[in-house]
């Protein structure tokens, strides 16, 4: 079909440049629109139903709300638990991201910028650890955490997330630090700046976009993580939002606007971050493929 249409227009519109390809372009747009529609269906369902009352949902489960209400959003927060879970997720994500970025930046400096033989080996080990199945670590970590009586604490989970993020963060920062102009470092060296000084006043300032990239990717990962949150934070008021929403769903599963409002609350922070910092997300998540 498409190719025949293309052939016809090919003959008819030879002179005009761009219009020659219009059926092909239309087809491209149709394919892309179909994919975008598929990508948005669940989000559409989530948002439109969060804006309905329970009664309206029963009569109109898929359409646009006839008179939209923000009531469900308030109701979702009213129990207090959702807010508590949001706070937990926020504290845990922020602490792990800050810690692991700091540790990774410190380690990435010699790995990227110093001639240091063990560094090559260390990097290979980090790449291997990056893809280690988390479940494999969770089994012993749980036992070890129980042995030191640190289950159900913020600090144990923050320590675990920080550790799990380190290989990825270090690896990514190494590849970014390698692009720092050598002349800058060289002139600092001649001025007598030590390595720590060079890291702090040259490498870090010019790597702010890189640090933002690493931090956003880490935040996305911690915010959305489930397995560790399920296993290590079992008391109700320590739950993270991602585990919380599954509890929320089973508790209110008949009141769909309420459940969907909870889902929207859980989704807003990361989607907002993504829309604001899109280029950092894309750069961070694709870095492994394009740059080493």
């Amino acid at each position: 079909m498409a190719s025949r249409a293309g052939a016809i227009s090919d003959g008819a519109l030879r002179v005009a440049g761009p219009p020659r390809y219009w059926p092909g372009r239309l087809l491209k747009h149709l394919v892309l629109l179909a994919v975008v529609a598929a990508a948005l269906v669940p989000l559409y369902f989530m948002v439109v139903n969060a804006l309905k009352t329970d009664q309206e949902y029963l009569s109109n489960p898929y359409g646009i709300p006839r008179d939209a209400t923000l009531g469900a959003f308030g109701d979702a927060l009213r129990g207090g638990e959702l807010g508590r879970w949001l706070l937990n997720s926020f504290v845990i994500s922020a602490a792990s991201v800050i810690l692991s970025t700091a540790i990774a930046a410190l380690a990435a400096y010699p790995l990227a910028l110093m001639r240091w033989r063990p560094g090559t080996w260390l990097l290979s080990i980090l790449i291997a650890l990056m893809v280690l199945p988390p479940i494999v670590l969770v089994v012993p970590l749980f036992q070890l955490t129980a042995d030191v009586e640190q289950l159900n604490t913020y600090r144990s989970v923050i320590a675990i997330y920080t550790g799990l993020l380190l290989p990825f963060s270090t690896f990514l920062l190494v590849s970014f630090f390698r692009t720092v102009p050598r002349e800058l470092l060289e002139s600092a060296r001649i001025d007598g700046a030590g390595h720590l000084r060079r890291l702090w006043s040259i490498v870090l300032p010019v790597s702010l976009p890189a640090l933002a990239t690493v931090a956003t990717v880490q935040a996305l990962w911690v915010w959305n993580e489930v397995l560790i949150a399920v296993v290590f934070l079992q008391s109700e008021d320590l739950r993270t939002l991602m585990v919380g929403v599954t509890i929320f769903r089973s508790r209110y599963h008949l009141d769909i606007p309420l459940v969907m409002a909870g889902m929207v609350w859980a989704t807003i922070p990361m989607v907002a971050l993504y829309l604001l910092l899109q280029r950092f997300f894309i750069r961070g998540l694709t870095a492994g493929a394009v740059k080493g």
Partner: protein
Amino acid sequence: MPRIPHPAHRDFMRLRIQPWLFCAPLLVGVALVFLWPLVSLFRYSFQRVGSGYIASEFVGFDNFRFIYKDPLFWKAIANNGTLLLCVPILIALSTILATLLFDRVRGWRAYRTFVFLPYIVSIPVVGIVFGYLFQKNGLVNSALGSIGITGPDWLGSSSWAIWTIMAVIVWKELGFGVMVFLARLISVPEDLFEAARIDGAGWWSRLRHVVLPQLAPAILFYAIVETITMLSWVFAYIYVMTAGGPGNSTVVSEYYIYQQTFQNTVIGIGAAAAVTLLAFVSVLILARIWLTRRVEALGV
């Protein structure tokens, strides 16, 4: 005047000791969260792990013998195998979409934003919302009903559930592939594609002779990452959408390990299954290291 070169011992400090100091926090973190747990895991896999006043006991290969005789373990492995079918599907779809976007159709940036959006939304939210959409009388079946097809009970039937989960995984992971491939295509020198366009090569022949060869490293990377994902990073989907059910039909190896360790509290059995999973995945991990080194050597 430039100063006289550093004394030898300062050079030694700078070149030999300082890198270790800079890496010390990293090494401590890695030792605590990766190495020590891994060593313990191997130890547990040969033990009946005690708790409180009950001491752990060495049991040789009993734990491994148990899981290899457990049909549920094999069912879990088979389900991971089924999920691997997502990988070629994801590669094909990502290639097509990345190529379309790379042609700079009008509004490609907006398309890109939306195609990537599912990758940002968390698995629990995705799983819960899809759970409603795939209900027996949910949106999907209503849509199918309007064109005269009676849809199955997507997540409630043991023969359909794993396929439904596959569809959700593809939905979520696709954006990542598109993004990786697109980033790769953008990093390829423009004139290569320009030459093909000037030669009048059609869409298909450009794809085959220009785009695919250029994409090869990215495809390999994505294939390895997604294979690892299907074998060992799908816990959240199962946990949220089916909890392994109905009738254990969607238990995957991670979920099996989780159940044995945290629900049946037989940590030794869970550890043995984890060691087995690790053996499967380590081949892929080696492939990943090899690939990264190769890409670096090429200087891409």
